[in-house]
């Protein structure tokens, strides 16, 4: 018997760009991926996880994610996360989660002051999260980044706390492309159910398109979403 395909909601904000790519990648990894419009006020019935995709929501003319956090759907996402629901923010999605206060820290302009699109190597710092269960501790993943504001930072206290509470899940390995503090590429919230990362796992699920390593992250999410769905039933 094939395991049930968990329902994963991918939010389309006005200006989202990787929403279809994320949907395509999740579907390829055996999830039922649904696009959810930013103006909706509820997530679809039976949603097991939410993905906030990359892009330039509402143009991001003010600051990445600063407007998107006020989108009607974000109340439902916040509520879902508060109830322990799985939320993954990729790139602009990560910025939105930070702006919404669902994740700590901020993402400022890249140290180089320019947009960067290239493959980077990440090292997996934790495998006991719903987003990295398929990875090995210390595993190196090759996944592309593409952003102008991916420089993760916070005050010293926050950065110390993040390390102490083991909230750093992914770090840039070798080259730190954007100047992020402690080479942080991805973090989780304290409860461990909300994660944000600047690299794009949805653009690394097929060797033909560059690398298959991002599939480890998304497949971990699909696994976790499936377990939650089963637990609910």
């Amino acid at each position, binding site marked *: 018997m094939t395991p049930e395909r968990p329902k994963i909601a991918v939010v389309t904000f006005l200006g989202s760009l*990787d929403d279809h790519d994320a949907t*395509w990648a999740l579907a390829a990894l055996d999830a039922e991926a649904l696009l959810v419009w930013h103006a909706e006020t509820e997530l679809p019935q039976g949603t097991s996880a939410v993905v906030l995709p990359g892009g*330039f929501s509402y143009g991001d003319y003010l600051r990445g994610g600063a407007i998107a956090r006020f989108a009607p759907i974000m109340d439902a996402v916040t509520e879902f996360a508060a109830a322990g629901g799985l939320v993954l923010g990729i790139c602009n999605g990560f910025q939105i989660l930070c702006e919404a206060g669902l994740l700590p820290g901020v993402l400022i302009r890249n140290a180089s002051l320019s*947009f960067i*699109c*290239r493959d980077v190597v990440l090292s997996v710092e934790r495998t006991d999260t719903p987003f990295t269960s398929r990875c090995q501790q210390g595993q190196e993943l090759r996944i*592309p980044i593409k952003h102008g504001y991916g420089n993760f930072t916070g005050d010293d206290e926050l950065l110390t706390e993040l390390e102490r509470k083991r909230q750093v899940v992914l770090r840039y390995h070798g080259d730190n492309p954007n100047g992020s503090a402690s080479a942080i590429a991805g973090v989780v919230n304290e409860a461990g159910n909300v994660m944000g990362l600047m690299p*794009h796992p949805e653009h690394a699920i097929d060797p033909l398109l560059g690398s298959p390593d991002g599939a480890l992250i998304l497949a971990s999410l699909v696994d976790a979403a499936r377990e939650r769905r089963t637990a609910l039933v």
Partner: protein
Amino acid sequence: MPLAHPVDSDSAWRLQPRAPERSTRPPVALGHVNPRRYTEGSLAQIEEQPIHRALGLTDWELQRICELLGREPNHFELAVFSLLWSEHCGYKHSALLLKKLPSTGERVLQGPGENAGVVDLGGDEAVAFKVESHNHPSAVEPFQGAATGVGGILRDIYAMGARPVALLDGLYFGQDDIQFENAVAGIGTYGNCVGVPNVGGATFFDSHYAGNCLVNAMCVGLLPREQLTSARASGIGSVVMFGATTGRDGIGGASVLASQELGEDDADKRPSVQVGDPFTGKKLIEVSIELIEKNLVESLQDCGAAGLASALSEMAASFGLDIHLDRVPLREADLEPWEIMVSESQERMVAAVTPSLVPAVKAVCERWELPCTEIGKITDTGVLRCFWKGEVVGDIQARFLTEDAPRYQLEFAPRPKQDPPLTPIAPPFRQALLELLGSDNIRDRAWVYERYDYIVGSRTVRRPGLDAGVIRLRPSLRGLALSLDGNGRIAWLDPRTGGAHAVLESARNVACAGGEPLAITNCLNFGNPEKPEMAWELNEAIEGMAETCVALGIPVVSGNVSLYNETDGQPIYPTPVVGCVGLVPDVRYVTDAWREDDVVLLAGEPQLSIAGSEYQALYDKVYGAPAEFDLEAEAALVRFLWKNNRFFSVAHDVAEGGLAVCLAECAIASGIGARVDLPADPVQLFGECGGLAVIACAREHVSQLEAGGVPLREIGTAGGDSLNGLPLGELTRAWRAEGVTPESAVRGT
């Protein structure tokens, strides 16, 4: 002295015209003359200079307009004529020459004349593509000029009903300076924000572009065959405008900027440059595609150069339109009707809609939070009639603006061919190779293309960097190979060879990536066509392109002409730029790197020359006659490259820097060296122009290659960590220009 003559044979021309006169004063925007009273005013009453000249029309052209209308035009109409009859919109100096280009073929679904060319890919799929210049706006304001160049070419693609899936850009600048940085940032800002990957292009530096840079943007879109959309209205209905509001930006862009030379007073032209809003651009893409997919619009047209004036005259061509300009949503309250008509505010579309479907169209726009307004009706009068608060402000037969635009026959003054160049005294091989690898036109382009999102859309199989980008036609394994090329140096030495070279180079690049070239689009960047030597260059390049296209069996399905590329009388190198689209049967075979022990071969045996080469530019001055082409051999090479591609581990054509640089680039890209027999003659080592390619394949596949008449020569074996003893690390460092200047080191991070 008569500079140009209208053509007698053109049926639209009955009168023997007077020789056109050109204004000796620099052009000014209509806004400077401030014709407040658009409905009245005898032209003779304008004091400073006749208003038609200020708008870029000649006295003869004004007379012709009067004859067509049977009366004097009012200021509103004159503004519309000046834009539609500008070189940029009306192709008045180039149209007759462009007819020389082959534009038909079995696969051609739409040739030149619409917003973009469309080619059949089989299996109900089609590809729409076009390249367009945004040179003068980019010279005056590089960031916005380049950004709106991208915005404009995107609109041309989705106006055809196609979803944009790839961008390429051709950048020709004086040097890698702040102007260039800003243009790259502008392209990145627009393309990255609308989610269309930038998969390739050309970057070329030469002092001849210092005062007048070239920014050519190409866009490629995919569509189901039956979704092909026309700009022309196809029946009675409503005219709906959607997208951004209309403001004063970009007034006179097509006539003041694109169809005049640049000069000292360019700061005054900044208001003629449009300002882009990629967020609205993204919404506009989605709305346009959704309207077409849901079959809600009869025709779709973008407001590009000359704004509504151009869009509406195209749309009205076979029917007629009544347009109420006071209904157009405005950004500033006090715009005059003529300003609304000619504003080039970005991110606006007009559609012809069956009246009963207008509410459905409005609903789609509302969902995407875009303004949408019914601004008029399609009629059967053939007249483009514009109203302002119920009063007629303009009344022009649509064909006067399009079909009846003047067509000038140019006067040519050939430049004699130069003698072949001598081989300059150059440093030893090792030094020359390292210096060439680090030279401006050869070194690694990652610092440019890494500013662009080249992966969005999940189609990019081959990223920018080598020959051509490749995108996958998901869900199938077929793909498209895309390239954009053009070498102004060669075209300056011999424009005919330059035109041919641009076609061959782009076709070879596509073939090296495994694509069968299907068709091309071209952008002709030249100087002032009213100067006989420039006109000769343009004609030669077009004829060179035409001959080559015929030899390769590929048509030109779209394109753009950018003339008057001169600043203070100094013309650019004539630069024909060609974008090629090729069909890749199976993207799993797209080559990327040679492997240890692969056999390295040379395909082709062309004449080479150092005239116009990077080698010559580096160690001498640019002069001489480039090598001549054997078009039959060139066509055979292109065929050989794509037909045998599945056997290759690498295929890379010899271009800037010649054979030595080509081999080094293969080794750097592969991360594996090679030992090969190299000729001693600098012309053979560093010469350019003719079709020659380095290929590599496994030993057992050599016998399976079908040469098809192409000379193949085994020159060595891949392997190790050096190229004939030159360590790969050293080659790579030279190519990345590491440590050359502190500036480039910063950008590289």
